[in-house]
């Protein structure tokens, strides 16, 4: 099952730029939460702070408290340990090009030293089924490279890869922005089914998408969290004028 996320006074910098300013937020477990806002508003930086990917860039820095379940990820553990608990799906599909489909899905376990082949087979099948990709690739799991399938399939492969490590949280950074409408619909269906099992945080620039998949929505603007509430409330009766301007298209 998923874990909830509590963020307190999170600040992040990218070089000299202060990209996140005092973010406070509680993301509930086993639900989908969408983060919207114009580009450059800090929403991507925010999710990258949740699994400490932000700091992989040498000039980037983050401060504050982020609790996932009962772990303070900036205090209690090494980045590698945090990232094993959290799956991440990136903007562009990024399967490992030299690995087969099977190895791509199994990579999070195999490369961390997991050897039990029977369990691996099982996990790969379940993850691919969860990602709604199993039927399309089951015949050439070990024959085809992860990079040889279509873009939409690649992104679902990346989701399967993230699910295979049985994460508590699934972070998705604009997972459908590089995909065609049909593939986008499939990804959204997926999020819909997965959110009962995992805590999903999805960054999107597409407001309809946020409305379709998420129970909660947060609106970011120039590095601050302007409003965070039930999706329905944000889209029908936002309490902040800036949110209203953004979702009605008067702005940005």
């Amino acid at each position, binding site marked *: 099952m998923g874990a909830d996320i509590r963020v307190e006074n999170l600040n992040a910098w990218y070089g000299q730029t202060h990209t996140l300013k005092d973010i406070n937020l509680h993301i509930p477990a*086993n*639900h*989908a939460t969408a983060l919207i806002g114009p580009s450059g508003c800090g929403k991507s930086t925010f999710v990258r702070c949740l699994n400490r990917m932000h700091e992989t860039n040498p000039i980037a820095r983050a401060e504050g408290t982020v609790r996932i379940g009962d772990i303070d990820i900036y205090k209690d*553990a*090494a*980045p*590698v*340990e945090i990232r*094993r*608990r959290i799956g991440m799906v990136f903007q562009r599909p990024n399967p490992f090009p030299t690995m087969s489909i099977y190895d791509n899905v199994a990579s999070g*376990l195999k490369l*961390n*030293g*997991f050897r039990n082949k029977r*369990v691996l087979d*099982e*996990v790969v099948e*379940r*993850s691919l*089924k*969860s990602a*709604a990709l199993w039927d399309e690739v089951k015949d050439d799991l070990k024959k085809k490279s992860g990079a040889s399938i279509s873009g939409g399939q690649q992104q679902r492969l990346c989701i399967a890869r993230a*699910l*295979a*490590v*049985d994460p*508590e949280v699934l972070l998705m950074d604009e997972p459908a922005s590089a995909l065609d409408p049909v593939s986008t619909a499939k990804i959204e*269906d997926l999020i*819909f*089914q*997965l*959110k*009962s*099992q995992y805590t999903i945080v999805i960054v999107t620039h597409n*407001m*309809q998408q946020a*409305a*379709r998949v998420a*129970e909660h929505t947060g609106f970011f603007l120039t590095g601050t969290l302007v409003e965070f509430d*039930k*999706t*329905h409330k944000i*889209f*029908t*009766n*936002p309490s902040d004028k800036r949110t*209203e301007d953004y*979702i*009605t*298209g008067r702005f940005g």
Partner: protein
Amino acid sequence: MNEPGSIQLPQTILPERSEATGPVVEVIKPPSIIRSFLQSKSSGKFADGAFQGMMVVCAMSIFFIVLLILSVLVLNSKLSMHTFGWKFFTSSAWDPNVGDFGALPFIWGTVVSSLLAVCLAVPLALCVSIFLLEICPQWLRGPIAFLTEMLAAIPSVIYGLWAIFVLVPIMRDNVGPLLQKYLGWTGFFGGPNFGVGMLTAAVILAIMIFPVISSISRDVMKAVPIHQREAALALGATRWEMIRMSVLRNARIGIVGSVILGLGRALGETMAVTMVIGNHPDISKSLFAPATTLASVIANEFSEATGDLYVSALIEIGLALFIVTIVVNAIARLLVWAVTRGNSARAV
């Protein structure tokens, strides 16, 4: 009241509860042994540190090898440096029996043979680069580029073997007499012509450094942006004018770099030169006369050298060669880099 109506939200896709809609697919929860396995794994900090340490050691070893080579050459040539000082490089004595050593004939041989080789190779290499880039039909480009690169893969000793049995007779019986007949008055082609000597060494060197100059000058010319060429063509330039105005002018620094890189290769080239230059420490005006180079005197005499001073003098020659090639290569790389800006222009 706020009525943000720009987004039409059908009620069905505003889920308040997670199991609201969507086709029902059985999502099986992966076995939790996975979660417990991953959480039991350490952060790998130790392995990470050890791995990075190993990589640093590998990298540092390059630095130390260069340092080691330099220091061993300096240490072992101290005796010669003390005995002869700077005069070592201006004296033309080379008499192991008496113990009097000077490097001038070798410097002369190296410089003359290399410069001559560069003079022979550069015009050809540039013409071939222009041909391959601008004139050659597409289907022929690959094979010719491949063949010129094959030239670079042939070992030096095989060039030498070929030169001994093919080039030397040609130089002796065909090219030599012709040069003597028409250019004999210059004095560069006087004296007996055995086929073995400075000129033959320069020719074989030219063949060997041709691929270096050709492939790198091609890289540099390729780096000239297409719009530069189009600008020239749009002004009504012929193909040659376009090449001269935009390609050669823009790539000239890099071309100079490629030439210097070729020169660096020629300076240090050993085997082929040793096999055909005649190995005689004389400074002669005639290009037919046998000569010798810094590299070939080492190849010929180092393993038989007796006496500390003799060995030390040879090592000082090696040190001089080392330093000169470093300087030449550094200049060349800077020039090539200035044009291609990191686009791969590796030396062959």
